[in-house]
C-alpha cells in the first residue's frame, strides 16, 4: 500500500461518509431521493450539472483524445459551451411543466405530454440503454485510476470491483443528496488538480505552453489542426451539433433539471458554465504534453496518458491526490447514472406493468435495481475494450434521438402526436443501433461523395430519419383519426 493508494481510499471513505450524512433528517421518499424535494438553488444545480459533465471522461478521455487524436479533441470544449446556450431556452419550460405535474423522471415528461405510458416505457428503455455505455465509461475510468495509482499492485479488474461496490452503497443510501455534496468536494479538488497539472507539466517539460505546442507540431505536422478527411471540420461541426442536442437528453441530466428551486437558476447558470468549460483546456495541455513524454500508448491506452505522465513526473502523494480527484469524477456521475436508470425502470416500466404497486414498493424496487445495474455494467466493463470517447459518443447518439420528440412537445399543443413520437424515436434508435453494429458510415455508403459529406457524424442521418418518420407518422395517423371517426377504424390502430 503506497501513499497514493492511501490518499485515494481515504477520499473514497470520506465521500461515502458525506453521502450518508447528507440524507440525515430527510424522509427519503421518491421525490427526495431523486429530485431533492425540488429545493436546489443555483449553486447546487451548478455543481450537479457541472458534476455530471466533468466526469472521468474529462479527466482521462479528454487528455486521452488530445494525446491520440490531437485537434479533434477540441469538440468537447465546443459542445459543452453551446449546450449551455440552448439550456437558456430549453430548461425553463421543462422545469415549469415538471413542477406543475410533479414529474420525477425524464420518461414522466413524455408520458404526461403525449398522454402515453407506453411511450414512457420506450423513452425509459432508450435512456437505460444509453446509460450503460456511460456507466461502463465511469467504471473503466475508476479501474484505470486505482490500478495506475497503485503502481501496478492492484489489477484493473480488482480496482473496478472496489469502485463499483463503493458507488453502489453510496447511491442506495443517499440518492441525489449524496451526489450534490460529493460534487462540491469533487469540483473544488478537480479544479485545482487540473489547472495545476495543465500549467506545471508543459512548463516543466518544455518551458511553456507555446514551446510545448511547437514541439508537438514539429514532431507531428498537422496534428494541431483538423485533418482534411476523417475527423475533419465537417465531422467537428456535425458531432458538436448532435452532442449539443443530446446534452440534456441524458435521463440523469434531464432529471436533475427538476431539482432546481426555480427556473431562473438555469438562466443565471448559463453565464458561468461556459467559462467553467475552460478547465478542459488544461486537460488538453496535459494530453499534448504526454505525446512526446510518454509515447507509444496505442488505441484505448491513450486514456492512460494523464496518469502515466503523472507517475513519471510526481511523487506518490501527488499521484494520490490526482487519483482521488479522478475517483470522485467517476463517483458523482456514476451515482447519478445508477440512480436515474433504477428510477426509470421502477417507475416508468415496472409501475406501468403493475399499476397497483404502492409508492413505497416502487421506491424499494428502484433501490434494489441499483446493484443489478451495477453488476451488468461491471460485466461489460471487464469484457470490452473501447476508448472512453467512443463509449461516450455511442451513448450520445442514442439519447439525441429523444430530442425531436421533446422539442416539438414544448408548446402547449404538441406539433406531433404520440404515434409520431413513438415511431420517430424508434426509427432513430434503430438507425443508431444498425450503424453501431454494422460499423456503417456515410463514407462506406457513398464512397464517391466529397469528404465534407462523408465525414458527417452518422448521428445526423439518424436524426433526419427520426424527424421524417416522426412527422410522416403524425400526419398519417392524424388524417386517419380525423377523416374516419367511426370507432371501428380507430380500434384497429394500436393504442400506444
Amino acid at each position, binding site marked *: 500500500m503506497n501513499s497514493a493508494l492511501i490518499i485515494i481510499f481515504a477520499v473514497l471513505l470520506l465521500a461515502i461518509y458525506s453521502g450518508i450524512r447528507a440524507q440525515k433528517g430527510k424522509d427519503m421518499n421518491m421525490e427526495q431521493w431523486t429530485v431533492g424535494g425540488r429545493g436546489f438553488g443555483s449553486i447546487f444545480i451548478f455543481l450537479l450539472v457541472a458534476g455530471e459533465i466533468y466526469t472521468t471522461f474529462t479527466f482521462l478521455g479528454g487528455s486521452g483524445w488530445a494525446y491520440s487524436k490531437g485537434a479533434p479533441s*477540441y469538440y468537447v470544449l*465546443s459542445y459543452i459551451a453551446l449546450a449551455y*446556450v*440552448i439550456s437558456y431556452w430549453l430548461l425553463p419550460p421543462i422545469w415549469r411543466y415538471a413542477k406543475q405535474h410533479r414529474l420525477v423522471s425524464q420518461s414522466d415528461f413524455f408520458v404526461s405530454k403525449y398522454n402515453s405510458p407506453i411511450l414512457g416505457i420506450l423513452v425509459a428503455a432508450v435512456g437505460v440503454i444509453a446509460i450503460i455505455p456511460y456507466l461502463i465509461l465511469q467504471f473503466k475510468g475508476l479501474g484505470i485510476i486505482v490500478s495506475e495509482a497503485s503502481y501496478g499492485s492492484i489489477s484493473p479488474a480488482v480496482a473496478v470491483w472496489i469502485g463499483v461496490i463503493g458507488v453502489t452503497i453510496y447511491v442506495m443510501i443517499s440518492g441525489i443528496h449524496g451526489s450534490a455534496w460529493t460534487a462540491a468536494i469533487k469540483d473544488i479538488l478537480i479544479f485545482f488538480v487540473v489547472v495545476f497539472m495543465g500549467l506545471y507539466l508543459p512548463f516543466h517539460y518544455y518551458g511553456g505552453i507555446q514551446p510545448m*505546442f511547437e514541439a508537438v507540431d514539429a514532431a507531428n505536422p498537422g496534428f*494541431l489542426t483538423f485533418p482534411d478527411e476523417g475527423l475533419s471540420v465537417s465531422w467537428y461541426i456535425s458531432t458538436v451539433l448532435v452532442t449539443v442536442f443530446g446534452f440534456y437528453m441524458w435521463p440523469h441530466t434531464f432529471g436533475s433539471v427538476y431539482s432546481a428551486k*426555480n427556473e431562473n437558476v438555469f438562466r443565471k447558470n448559463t453565464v458561468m458554465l461556459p467559462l467553467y468549460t475552460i478547465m478542459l*483546456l488544461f486537460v488538453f495541455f496535459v494530453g499534448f504534453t504526454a505525446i512526446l513524454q510518454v509515447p507509444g500508448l496505442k488505441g484505448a491506452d491513450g486514456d492512460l496518458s494523464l496518469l502515466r505522465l503523472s507517475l513519471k513526473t510526481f511523487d506518490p502523494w501527488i499521484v494520490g491526490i490526482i487519483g482521488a480527484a479522478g475517483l470522485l469524477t467517476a463517483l458523482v456521475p456514476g451515482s447519478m447514472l445508477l440512480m436515474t436508470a433504477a428510477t426509470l425502470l421502477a417507475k416508468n416500466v415496472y409501475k406501468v406493468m403493475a399499476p397497483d404497486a404502492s409508492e413505497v414498493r416502487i421506491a424499494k424496487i428502484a433501490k434494489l435495481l441499483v446493484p443489478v445495474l451495477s453488476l451488468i455494467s461491471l460485466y461489460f466493463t471487464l469484457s470490452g475494450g473501447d476508448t472512453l470517447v467512443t463509449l461516450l459518443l455511442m451513448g450520445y447518439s442514442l439519447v439525441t434521438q429523444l430530442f425531436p420528440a421533446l422539442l416539438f412537445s414544448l408548446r402547449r399543443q404538441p406539433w406531433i402526436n404520440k404515434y409520431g413520437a413513438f415511431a420517430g424515436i424508434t426509427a432513430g434508435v434503430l438507425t443508431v443501433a444498425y450503424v453501431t453494429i454494422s460499423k456503417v458510415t456515410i463514407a462506406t455508403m457513398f464512397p464517391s461523395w466529397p469528404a465534407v459529406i462523408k465525414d458527417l457524424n452518422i448521428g445526423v442521418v439518424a436524426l433526419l430519419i427520426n424527424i421524417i418518420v416522426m412527422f410522416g407518422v403524425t400526419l398519417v395517423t392524424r388524417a386517419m383519426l380525423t377523416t374516419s371517426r367511426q370507432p371501428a377504424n380507430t380500434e384497429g390502430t394500436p393504442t400506444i
Partner: protein
Amino acid sequence: MKARDWLGVLPFVGMLGGVPFVNRVEPYVLGMPFVLFWIVLWVVLTSVIMAVVNRLDPAAREEEHNG
C-alpha cells in the same frame, strides 16, 4: 423570436461556422494554436453573450426581484 433570442445563435455561428476559416496552427495566440485559441475565445464570448441575454430578458430579471 425576439432580438435577444437571436443573440443565442451567435455562439453557434462563431464556434462552428468560424472553424473552417481558422483551421491553422499559426499565429499562436496566448501560446495556443490559432484554431484552439479561436474556440476558447468563443467559449469566453459565449459567457459574455449569455450575460447580455440575461440582462435583456425581463423574465430573468423579474424573478431576481422576487428572490
